[in-house]
């Protein structure tokens, strides 16, 4: 999947990937896609939950070799 920006969260545990995503998303324009790369499995549940609460769109995930890539489209105001 194509992304406008990437956020590296490899080696970080909850809540840091969420905290960093919330900060990073501010740099994106509405409609742009952020790719978050993480290896804490909690993110598979956490990121869709964060998106639901903040009004962003979780486009999907790719998992390969212990790394999880999550794609979030900025739709919040």
């Amino acid at each position, binding site marked *: 999947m194509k992304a406008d920006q990437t956020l590296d969260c490899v*080696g*970080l*545990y*909850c*809540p*840091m990937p*969420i*905290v960093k*995503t*919330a*900060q990073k998303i501010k740099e994106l324009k509405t409609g742009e896609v952020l790719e978050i790369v993480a290896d804490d499995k909690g993110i598979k549940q956490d990121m869709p939950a*964060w998106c639901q*609460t*903040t*009004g*962003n769109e979780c486009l999907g995930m790719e998992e390969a070799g212990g790394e999880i890539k999550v794609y979030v489209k900025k*739709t*919040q*105001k």
Partner: protein
Amino acid sequence: MAEQEKTTEKEKMTIVVFSGELDKALAAFILATTGASMGMDVSMFFTFWGLNILKKNEGAPGGKGVMKKMLNFMNRGGSKRLKLSKFHMFGMGTGMMKKFMKDSRLPSIDEFMRMAKDMGVKMIPCSTSCGIMGLGEGAFREEVGSLAGAAFFLNEARQSKVTLFI
């Protein structure tokens, strides 16, 4: 759904931090910073042993009068002196847990407090506990807001979607 949420006011989250142990403080700050990251307006109300988390690490122990000075000397507090609620083992267990936290690149309580402050989390010491223990606002670190009482907490809590007691 997103459209609807945009127009409404921010959701609120309120946490009572009654305990003054490292592990419980960690739980409180993880939830507070995550709540703020999820767009919530977070207030943390520190009471009784929880006040230890907010005390300054440096300087003389606070307290007005000899007895209360003694209490705050015994019950020194400060983010760097917090113990684990289990397996403290004269500091060995706590030291090991701090190392594990660092190895996992988890922020320390100090770092969590600064992060929370930057995210707009309010940290409020309970005025009654402060009165009982002889602590003024000067006893606390700079991230801490002004003292408040139970009515303030309940007013925040009744507007909150999430209320926790730790």
